[in-house]
């Protein structure tokens, strides 16, 4: 039903996000990379919800909506934590405060 290009994109986006998490030290960018990974999974879930013998399956859509709320909450929380850390240590990466 759904073209094969969407699940492949989901997998590649996940890989790109993983690369970002592993290589970016700057916390905000690492956060963006984590969100990219989450979006990739959301894309995969929605792709699996289309088609099927019983019509569109609403369960993955509901899961994605829940996931979006959770991802937004954790992102907002993480941004405050990053700013708090910045005020305390003036650092924006964990690597630069390892040695204190």
């Amino acid at each position, binding site marked *: 039903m759904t073209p094969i*290009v*969407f*699940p*492949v*994109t*989901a*997998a*590649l*986006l*996940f*890989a*790109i*996000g*993983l*690369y*970002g998490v*592993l*290589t*970016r030290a*700057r916390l*905000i*960018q690492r956060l*963006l*990379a984590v969100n*990219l990974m989450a*979006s990739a999974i*959301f*894309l995969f879930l*929605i792709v*699996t919800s*289309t088609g*099927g013998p*019983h019509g*569109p*399956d*609403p*369960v993955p*859509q*509901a899961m994605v*909506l*829940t996931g*979006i*709320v959770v991802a*937004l*909450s*954790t*992102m*907002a*929380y993480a*941004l*405050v934590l990053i700013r*708090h850390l*910045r*005020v305390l240590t*003036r*650092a*924006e*990466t964990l*690597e*630069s405060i390892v040695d204190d």
Partner: protein
Amino acid sequence: MLPVFDTMLCLGLLWLGWGIVASTTLFRGVVLFMVFGLLMAVTWVRLSAPDVALAEAVIGAGIAGALLLGACKAMLSDPGTPAEQGGPEPAALPRLPAAALSLLVGAALAWLMVTVRGGGPVPEAVAIALPTHFLHNPVSVILLDLRGYDTLMETVVLLLAFLGARAMMRHSELDPLFTPVATHRHYTMPLITLLTPILLLLALHILWTGGNAPGGAFQAGALLAALGVMYQLTGHLRPSRESGPGVRALLVCGLLVFSLFACLGLTWGDAPLTYPRGAGYVSALVVEIALMLSIGTTLTLLFAAHPGLKPDLRQ
């Protein structure tokens, strides 16, 4: 024509994804992430997931972007540690092994995601349960009834994010994210007057039709929060260190109503979260209204990065 569209869409997503991860400056990464949100909304529309598209439109285009731009601003207004000034970003992990690992994971996942079997007991059971349900929007059936517990707990995550953030804000000298320029008020005022009724109406519309058409408490609440964010950006609401009883009541009312409703399930059913027979639609609506108010308040306060807000009505 559709395959061309799909391919272009996917290439765009991948290009943006790479740009977000590889961008050398914070601001560029954030702007790319906002564009990524827009393109994701288009993708959800293309894949016929209107509920998700609505949520992504409000979050991607509105709240997440403003949050990230704010954090970006906070980072820029501080010169950073001596080691970071001017110097390159310290490396987390060497690039080569990370790239090899990611490629491997990507290839394996691509193969898996294309070959998964699909179907199964849940889709079948849901397809049978949907037609007789008192709500007509399939996604709302899942979110409010079949998996209502998830929705309850996702709201707990949102509240907890605020409680944790509030603990940090209370005793840290975090400046308000945005200090509106006074001269701009002149220009933003008409926009606010225009947008306030429209956004309120839209939020109510999305909530009201949520039972039977795409939309629901979260989308409506996020829309209210977008309005709150706009009020803060234009200086009509200012962060405050104290939260009044009204704000606190709004914060908890959604979860309180939902959890009390969940307990009541024990009286008219065998398990918590059961809907009363015959009054399902009304109960769902009451829960949704309360959730919308709480979600809107919590997201607005999370953006403010302060425990409370106070109106500023100077012209």
